[in-house]
């Protein structure tokens, strides 16, 4: 699967309180969560981001809380993919469970806000300008889970089977 999109850069240690502040956590509607995504750091982000845009970040993206509202908020804005140097553990599982793809690659210093990059999610090949970077492969176990349609579909099949 190839995605091509304009990028938004966010630095290191983007925590879940930035991605979606706790004051909105009584909401479960992804649309409402999306409207407040990244609010403490970039209040205009939800208005300016376009479906198909890609987030590029540094290390430890998604650190902090286990709130699944975080990947829900990002996915609700139509963002298909985050490329970061590393991801926090709980966010990593949550994103895949919510249909948001993540790739680990250190491209932060190779790109600037608004650049367009092309990413083959299945091979992990990222093309940004002149550079071609290979992301760390998604663990085979996660690939199997994605191929099953995610954890919930896997569970559904198991219960129906």
């Amino acid at each position, binding site marked *: 699967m190839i995605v091509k999109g304009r990028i938004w850069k966010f630095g290191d240690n983007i925590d879940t309180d930035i991605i979606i502040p*706790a004051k909105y956590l009584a909401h479960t509607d992804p649309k409402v969560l999306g409207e407040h995504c990244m609010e403490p750091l970039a209040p205009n982000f939800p208005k300016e981001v376009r479906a198909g845009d890609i987030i590029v970040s540094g290390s430890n993206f998604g650190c*902090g809380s*286990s709130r*699944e509202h975080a*990947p*829900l908020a990002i996915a609700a804005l139509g963002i298909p993919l985050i490329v970061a140097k590393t991801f926090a553990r*709980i966010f990593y599982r949550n994103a895949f*469970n*919510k249909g948001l793809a993540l790739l680990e690659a250190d491209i932060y210093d190779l790109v600037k806000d608004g650049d367009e990059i092309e990413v083959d999610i299945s091979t992990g090949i990222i093309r940004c300008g002149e550079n071609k970077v290979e992301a760390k492969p998604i663990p085979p176990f996660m690939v199997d889970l994605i191929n099953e349609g995610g954890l919930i579909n896997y569970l559904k099949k198991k*219960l129906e089977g």
Partner: protein
Amino acid sequence: MGMTITEKILAAHADKERVEPGEILDCRIDLALANDITAPLSLEEFEKVGAKAVFDPDKVVFVLDHFTPNKDILSAENCKRIREFSRKHGIVNFFEGGECGIEHALLPEKGLVVAGDLVIGADSHTCTYGALGAFSTGMGSTDVTYGMVTGRTWLKVPESIKFHCYGKWRKWVTGKELILHILGMIGVDGALYSAMEYSGEAIAALSMDSRFSIANMAIEAGGKNGIFPVDDRTISYMKEHATRPYKVYASDDDAKYSQEYEIDASKVGFSVACPSLPSNVRDAGELSAIDVDQVVIGSCTNGRLEDLEMAAAILAGKKVSKGLRCIVIPATPAIYGEAMRRGYFQTFLDAGCIISPPTCGPCLGGHMGILAKGERAVATTNRNFIGRMGHPESEVYLAGPAVAAATAIKGRIARPEEVL
């Protein structure tokens, strides 16, 4: 090659003789937990998959602790939904109202977690139960739904990092100062995906309350779990609180660690994490110019009896600085009752503190003590991210209970010696 305590617990729950770091396991769980923020999403997924029942109504726990007593209509609706689900499915361990405490203080106190257990929870601080020699870790709501329905979860065996602590603790220094000290050493991703294992004479000297504080903040270093050896103190805690059988696992002498740190307890001072990362640690003595508007003494990290005891000892006969709000939040009804019986409440009231019912409340900027633009708090909580306790331009400094209480008296960041 031997195995670590974490590897042994995971192996036992996957019915395997031995496991290696990096291996993916399908494990049995002993408990699945969610709260009033995360359970609503879990229940949505539960309905989506068409599940008819939870795997075991005794092993699914809901604690309505975050936005309660209900802070607004949406929070009330969420709690109502969880209450109705709990009734329908016969959930035994559903906690709300006067039975409710902050989940990670409440579950050990209720004896719901014992040594050797494997616990998953839709709350990142689920790692707290490692203090009991259990494996516990935070996950998202969807993963917890899977656990609620099947009684199982998938886990990658983490590498283990050993923190060996020796020497004697300085007066007023607790587990909180140690974990902040460690965060300062290794950073907020210093234990990414890893188990943080503690050992040594200085660890053995720590109270259970201090051990809970340390295990609680493993997630702040990116850790998967924090874990302690089981000793006489752990066993007497479990005997007092639990009726379930426990199983003691211990790391082998030749277990493999990805990193090992030696920490001299006597060198751990009054660690304070400055905005806006828990790893941005300085000594309280270097921060005496920092004026403070609010002090919070509470949370799943530091709302236990030892914390209140220390705060009361420092605040006794003193007054909270004029213009500063000092909010004390006992973490559970039992802690609340004991603090009252011991006379801490009178001390807090005389000093001019506010005493809150058990709730996560201000820790995550929920309610019961939100900061205005430009305001600054010292809190015994676990996170000081941008806007964590309120306005994006407010600030949180993380500290232990003694520094928090001394700060409340001085109106600026202070060490306990300055007020005693």
